[in-house]
């Protein structure tokens, strides 16, 4: 924990995690018909074949997809297996990798759709990598805004300021969809109307710029196809510099263990309430990369500053 400085500002790093649902067989049929057909044949024949599920781009045979025992076979029929915990794993990695210089580290995760054991795994990682008492499971965007706008850390009189936010979630143009396709999708949506409720003072670092990184899909583009969108709105309201993508993002490297075996890398499974998912106590192996759709959207990571000075 950092000392309370002379000007009495304490800096926070925040990692925000959305939910990831299993969209089911029919969804997979539309998104990955070939893989699904292959997986079905493999299930019938008993062969092993990787099927990485709806939001994962493609299986890499050298990565952690070939996991514990019959993990690869799990991929054949369980779209939750690698996807369910991917945002949470990236959020934990964010705490480890991106929080340098902050006095406090905060993990905020939308907890809808997880089993008790899955929540416990996220909380345990939060207890290890976030600051004490700074892991929050929430179910509504209104609570997220409250937490971001907190003027002080509990029990501390100094001003609380946000140095950096990393956002790991499903995203749509003009919408950070923290509860995409879930039972509380509307309450977990974050649009420009929510951006307007953020307190810009929390992002005033006095001589330094605060940053917001959105790793969600298409934060940098509007529904009409112009660059800017929610990313520009966030920059304008908070005064922070915002980094975001106009295309979809790709979380398929989350469990990529490189040359190490899954066991050596420490990957494990959480089996609970009929759900079987991949997890690592220290979070993701590798970060998020840009995807390639929609092809008409401009590629690359965009930078947005207040006032539209891209």
């Amino acid at each position, binding site marked *: 924990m950092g000392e309370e400085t002379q000007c009495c500002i304490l800096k926070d790093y925040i990692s925000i995690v959305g939910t990831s649902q299993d969209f089911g*067989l029919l969804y997979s049929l539309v998104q990955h018909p070939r893989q699904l057909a292959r997986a079905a044949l493999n299930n019938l024949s008993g062969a092993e074949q990787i099927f990485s599920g709806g939001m994962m781009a493609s299986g890499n045979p050298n990565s952690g997809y070939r996991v514990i025992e019959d993990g690869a076979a799990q991929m054949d029929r369980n779209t939750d297996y690698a996807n369910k915990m991917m945002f949470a794993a990236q959020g934990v990695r964010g705490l480890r990798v991106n929080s340098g210089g902050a006095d406090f580290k905060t993990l905020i995760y939308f907890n809808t759709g997880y089993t008790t054991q899955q929540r416990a795994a996220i909380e345990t990682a939060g207890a290890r990598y976030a600051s004490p008492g700074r892991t929050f499971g929430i179910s509504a965007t209104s609570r997220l805004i409250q937490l971001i706008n907190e003027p002080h850390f509990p029990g501390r009189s100094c001003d609380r300021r946000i140095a950096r936010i990393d956002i790991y979630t499903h995203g749509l143009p*003009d919408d950070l969809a923290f509860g995409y396709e879930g*039972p*509380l*999708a509307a309450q977990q*949506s974050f*649009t420009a109307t929510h951006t307007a409720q953020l307190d810009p003072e929390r992002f005033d670092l006095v001589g330094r710029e605060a940053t917001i990184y959105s790793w969600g899909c298409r934060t940098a583009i509007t529904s*009409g196809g112009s660059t800017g969108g929610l990313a520009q709105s966030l920059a304008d309201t908070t005064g922070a510099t915002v980094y975001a993508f106009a295309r979809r993002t790709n979380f398929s490297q989350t469990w990529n263990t490189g040359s190490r075996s899954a066991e050596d890398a420490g990957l494990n499974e959480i089996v609970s309430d009929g759900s079987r998912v991949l997890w690592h106590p220290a979070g993701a192996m590798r970060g998020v990369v840009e995807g390639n759709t929609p092809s008409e959207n401009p590629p690359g990571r965009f930078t947005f500053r207040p006032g539209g000075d891209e």
Partner: protein
Amino acid sequence: MKRRFALGLAGLGLLAGLWFFSERILFAMNWTNMGLDGAEIIAGLRADLAAGRTGIVVSDLPCVKDRVALDLSVNLTGHLPRGEQVIMRISVTGPQAMFDQIYLGPPVPVIRVDATPLCLTQTGPLADTDEEAFAYLNISFYDLEENQFQSFGSEDADPIFAWQDINVELLERPEKSRSQGVTRLKITPAM
């Protein structure tokens, strides 16, 4: 001749029946268990129903730009589940929307809402090419008895606010959206 006609009619009837039931079978396949969260979500729905929050729920947000009010109508086609314990919620999400829910209650095919508030960044009537006109529509069904739900939404927004009167076709078989994502509904302007 009569026999052929009867056989043809029976064949058509069989095909129509299969189609009719396929919609229901596919709809049934899409139910998702709410698990741990179900009790809280169901309690929230029951509380909203008891408190009469069944129509538009306006956000208590200031609009420092141009605030306008639009009437909306939503005409649904496709399979609508029945049952005393099945609830439908329709939400509209967009950067300009000063509200979220427009309907909560038993599944019905037509919804009309007066004066939905929007906070626009520019004045003048909305056109279907304006950024301000775009919004996402989400229709969720909750089976309060079976602790399950399913949602119909899209990865692409539509110019709902410019059209105001819209037809929505629920898709039991999801389709590729315009942006190579997935959609479970088709929205078109009502003529």
